[in-house]
């Protein structure tokens, strides 16, 4: 049976989602993987709205509460050696409990450290990135923050990125 994208959505929201029209990227942007996985440096990027409490403030949930059609478009850097207790979560559209129990379900820093140790991947970059996925208007992501994160990953000589929306 094919995978059901709407299995865990309330029916009203699932029905609404299926009425939304989106423009498909044409052509689809494409960078071929240039080397074996075991030589690739990986970056991790999630849109789970998490942050390192010892480094950064949360995403701006207060403004979103005042302006429900706005979502904080900025990003946060999170070091690969972050410990679970440093992780904060400010996504208002999911229950953050499980992320606060194990960040690897959205930002798999420990799993990639293991894959690096095993030689399956070349390396995991020192810095990972988090954005907050509720973006009714995506222009700031497209024009500013997306390219900024891409530039930071390139600066770290990242070859490939695992992306995890929440």
């Amino acid at each position, binding site marked *: 049976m094919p995978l059901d994208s709407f299995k865990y959505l309330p029916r009203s929201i699932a029905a609404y989602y299926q009425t939304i029209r989106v423009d498909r990227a044409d052509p689809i942007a494409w*960078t071929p993987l240039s080397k074996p996985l075991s030589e690739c440096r990986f*970056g991790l990027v999630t849109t789970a709205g998490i942050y390192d409490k010892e480094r950064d403030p949360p995403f701006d949930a207060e403004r979103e509460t005042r302006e429900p059609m706005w979502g904080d478009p900025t990003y946060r850097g999170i070091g690969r050696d972050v410990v679970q207790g440093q992780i904060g979560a400010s996504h208002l559209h999911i229950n953050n409990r499980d992320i606060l129990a194990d960040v690897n*379900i959205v930002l798999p820093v420990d799993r990639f450290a*293991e894959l690096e140790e095993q030689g399956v991947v070349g390396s995991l970059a020192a810095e990972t990135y988090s954005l907050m996925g509720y973006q009714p208007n995506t222009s700031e992501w497209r024009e500013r923050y997306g390219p900024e994160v891409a530039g930071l990953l390139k600066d770290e000589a990242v070859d490939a990125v695992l992306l995890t929306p929440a």
Partner: protein
Amino acid sequence: MLAQTFEKAGLSTVLVTMMPYWAEKMGAPRTVGVEVPFGHPLGMPGDREMQMNIIRAALSLLEETQEPGAISEVGVEWPQPSDEARKDWQPLEASPIIKMMRDQAQARAQERRQET
């Protein structure tokens, strides 16, 4: 969408998502679909094996496909009954947009009652 930006900058991307429906519509470069509740793209907290299975599926797609828009699926046995899981991922307090939509629906219902 971020995937498009990253690919244009010379990064190869693979997206792991519970909504491959969207990924296909938007033309994500490489997608692994996984049937999990929102907020859990890589599985259950503390379940290293489930997390690694999903990550390995993403790495395989990255390594193997040369086809822009490729989508693969990875099977996951979610340990909660789906009715329970459908509620459990949702925030304890409704998000601002959901609250706003509820308020608007209530206001419309009240207007209709006043008209009749």
